[in-house]
């Protein structure tokens, strides 16, 4: 049984991080250069960690499967990043950001971690502005903000609809500086395929060079995994196709606990599925809900009618109706489920009936009139207002409207978007303590790959915040606490038996996959798994459904290992093999997610069990039995994993029923 010591510092919530920083062990500058840290991943979390640690003087190697660190999935984030700057003078504060995040997570996150996140959020914006991130600005030259879901203040910083791109390029520029100055060794197109554990400590990794197929050993004093989320287990999601769980999963199999795997975020505003050839779902940023109004027809018989022909009185702006104080900015889990309920009632729109409208007509009118007034136009014509309004909306969201047009061939200026929820983020991940270290000493986990800050539901614009917080402002302090206890020069050599054994483990897996030579391509299994996960472990879960899901996954997994066909050779670039390795891991992870969802007999945040709901369809938590983190421990192939728990103690906030009404 794993020991899960969260190491949360004592003392009042607001002082914990400051106190911890002053008490934490330090590594002296001359010794820092004797330690080698391997950072896996160069998304916001990995790139910022690698650069910060190199700047402190550690030897750093950064490994990514991409051909360039700039391609990490963080690049795709659209909407924005939160920070408690209170530049808007609208009553924001560190406490309020902390509180919103805790409540948004449906009281399933650690108070101390979330408070720290809110505290360092302000430093992130300073750091990124200094790096030259071109944030949106007001006419006076100061930073602009917008609102995101689950908040009643405007605290989201953004760079058009490409905030993730600009933040990642900022972190990438720091990493590039270090690579250019030889303080970070960059290794691209290598996939971490195993974790090497020596005497119970993480001391290295095994990678596969995706260009040549060769296996490599990297010995280290500490390993940082910052490899992102695992939403591609659903096949269709808003993730990049290459995002994978492999690094985390192999670490799990080496003893790291996997926490709350079933906590998945389904984002309400994505472009609906259109055909079975589809490879990904495209997000329409939450920022659109600042101005777009979500509705479905009141009457079922109207669902196939042109939206503009449906009079106001026959429209149901359901988020505004059900959640008047947050309206269209209700949190994601709440909004997604509401949309699903409307479609289940038969009021969904579009070809498949799985869609709701996101309508900008009102915003276009409002902005058009404002722009006309600013331009001193008296009695502007309706056309002029439309023209000015569309221009104003284009300035805010033009790139999103363009993406929508490319994919659907429809103009969202002229008719409402059709949207539907899709898998978007995974709150679960490897278990870490307050220092971001897993239960395997020496293994640190950052960014989306860990579980720690978002509880059962993540609020919009807070993943970017967490990635940069972990990499720029937390790990530079907390890694010292571990390394100070490791003798400089004590790291094992790559010749150590544990490296040979781990390398053999990877080689055997690859040989096995290559030798099946069955009848179906890898994609066949990925699609089937995705369907099982969506049907049984998606937006609404039940005991029967999850039990059935587990059985179906076991069957599918057995078939995969009998009948998959991975052509070509393992000795050069082989994209079919890359996919097969990842899908093999998903076929195991999927089962663990169902198991986690099955044993959590309550509803909270993104985890909705039909059996546990309030009469109005909202989540019914069971704080008596489930105010804890479930951290699963691998027990060996074919054996049931062990469910460890870490109790969540709320010292400052009172756990209550989350209401956005």
């Amino acid at each position, binding site marked *: 049984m794993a020991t899960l010591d969260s190491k949360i510092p004592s003392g009042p919530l607001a002082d914990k991080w400051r106190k911890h920083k002053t008490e934490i062990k330090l590594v002296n500058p001359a010794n820092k250069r004797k330690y080698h840290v391997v950072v896996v991943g160069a998304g916001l979390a990995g790139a910022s960690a690698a650069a910060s640690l190199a700047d402190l003087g550690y030897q750093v190697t950064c490994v990514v499967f991409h051909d*360039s660190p700039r391609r990490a999935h963080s690049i795709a984030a659209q909407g924005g990043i939160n920070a408690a700057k209170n530049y808007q003078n609208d009553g924001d504060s560190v406490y309020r950001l902390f509180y919103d995040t805790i409540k948004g997570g449906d009281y399933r996150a650690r108070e101390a971690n979330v408070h720290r996140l809110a505290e360092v959020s302000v430093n992130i914006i300073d750091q990124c502005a200094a790096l030259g991130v071109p944030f949106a600005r007001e006419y006076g030259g100061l930073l602009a903000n917008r609102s995101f879901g689950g908040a009643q203040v405007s605290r989201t910083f953004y*760079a058009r609809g490409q905030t993730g791109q600009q933040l990642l390029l900022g972190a990438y520029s720091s990493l590039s500086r270090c*690579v*250019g100055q030889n303080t970070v060794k960059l290794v691209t197109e290598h996939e971490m395929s195993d974790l090497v554990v020596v005497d119970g400590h993480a001391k290295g990794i095994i990678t596969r060079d995706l260009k040549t197929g060769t296996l490599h050993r990297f010995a280290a004093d500490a390993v940082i995994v910052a490899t992102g989320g695992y939403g591609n287990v659903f096949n269709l999601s808003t993730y990049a196709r*290459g995002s994978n769980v492999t690094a985390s999963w192999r670490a799990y199999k080496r003893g790291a606990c996997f926490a709350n795997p079933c906590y998945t975020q389904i984002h309400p505003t994505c472009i609906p599925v259109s055909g079975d050839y589809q490879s990904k779902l495209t997000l329409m940023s939450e920022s659109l809900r600042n101005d777009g109004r979500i509705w479905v027809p009141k009457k079922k018989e109207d669902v196939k009618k042109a939206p503009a022909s449906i009079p106001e009185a026959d429209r149901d702006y359901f988020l505004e109706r059900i959640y008047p104080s947050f309206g269209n900015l209700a949190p994601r889990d709440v909004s997604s489920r509401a949309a699903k309920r409307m479609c289940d009632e038969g009021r969904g729109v579009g070809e498949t009936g799985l869609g709701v409208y996101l309508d900008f007509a009102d915003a276009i009118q409002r902005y058009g009139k404002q722009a006309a007034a600013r331009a001193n136009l008296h009695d502007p014509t309706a056309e002029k207002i439309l023209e000015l309004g569309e221009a104003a909306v284009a300035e805010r969201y033009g790139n999103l409207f363009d*993406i929508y047009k490319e994919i659907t061939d429809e103009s969202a200026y002229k008719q409402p978007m059709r949207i539907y929820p899709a898998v978007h983020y995974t709150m679960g991940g490897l278990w870490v303590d307050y220092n971001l270290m897993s239960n395997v000493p020496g293994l640190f986990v950052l960014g989306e790959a860990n579980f720690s800050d978002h509880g059962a539901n993540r609020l919009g614009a807070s993943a970017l915040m967490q990635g940069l917080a972990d990499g720029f402002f937390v790990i530079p302090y907390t890694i010292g606490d571990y390394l100070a206890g490791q003798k400089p020069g004590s790291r094992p050599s790559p010749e150590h038996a544990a490296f040979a054994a781990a390398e053999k483990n990877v080689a055997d897996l690859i040989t096995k996959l290559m030798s099946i030579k069955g*009848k179906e391509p890898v994609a066949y299994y990925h699609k089937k798994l995705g369907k099982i996960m969506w049907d049984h472990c998606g937006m609404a879960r039940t005991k029967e459904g999850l039990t059935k899901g587990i059985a179906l996954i076991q069957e599918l997994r057995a078939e995969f290992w009998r009948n998959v066909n991975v052509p070509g050779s393992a000795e050069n670039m082989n994209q079919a093999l890359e996919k097969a390795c990842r899908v093999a891991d998903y076929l195991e992870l999927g089962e663990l997610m169902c198991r986690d969802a099955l044993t959590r007999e309550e509803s909270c945040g993104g985890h909705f069990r039909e059996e546990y709901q309030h009469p109005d369809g909202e989540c019914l938590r069971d704080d008596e039995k489930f105010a804890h983190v479930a951290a699963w421990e691998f027990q060996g192939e074919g054996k049931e994993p062990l469910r460890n728990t870490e109790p969540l103690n709320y010292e400052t906030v009172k756990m209550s029923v989350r209401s956005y009404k």
Partner: protein
Amino acid sequence: MVATAHSAPSTTPISITLRVWRQAGPAQPGRFVEYPAKDLNPNMSFLEMLDVVNDGLEGKGEDPIAFAHDCREGICGTCSLVINGKPHGPHKGVASCQTYMRSFANGDVIVVEPFRAKPFPVIKDLVTDRSAFDAIQQAGGFVTVRAGSACDANAIPVPKDDADLAMDAAQCIGCGACVAACKNASAMLFVSAKVSHLGLLPQGQAERDSRVLNMVAKMDELGFGNCTNQYECSAACPKLISHDFIARMNRDYIGASFRQAFKPKSTSTAGGA
């Protein structure tokens, strides 16, 4: 307002023939191979069409066509196909992954090749090695800031127009289409986008000269060609990065070279007591 019905896009299937560049490895010779692709929904993306073809090949135990891709929404810069002679295909302002089959007609023969340029060697089939771009960024594409040392973000106001123009340049996705489109394999558009992004902001001023000098030197060293003002680069760019940034970089470069030559330098390198 006139009520417009949803103009549902056509779903009539189309069939095409692909002529794809196949090359087993960097040192092996390549050649075109034809593959039929039948009954495609015109709303599938070009890459989804390749997925379908590859699933067919894999099911038969044949080596699938290697191609680079990741986000599939035009932001990561991984996809890099030359489609019918054009980097990123027939449409302006989109990446390969944002090209849809509705842009093609039933019966078309579609030629697909990798981005071809000396500094981007082929790894396999349609996948090339673009690490030269990273090397250029490492030479100077940054502002040196240690974590924890920044001042308050609002302490340095940035005029909105400057911030907007910097953002226009910063949108570059590092795909390399500009290089593939240029007969000289020049990387000027890519480099000028970074130089302009940081050069337009107050935060980028301290290292402005060294940045442009070092990045341009690295670009030359890596074998990218000269710019002869044909502007095929900006025409192929999925983010429509303007070639005005090239002119801006040239001005920066001349100024920086001049200042570099005549700048008084401190001779002290002492560390102090």
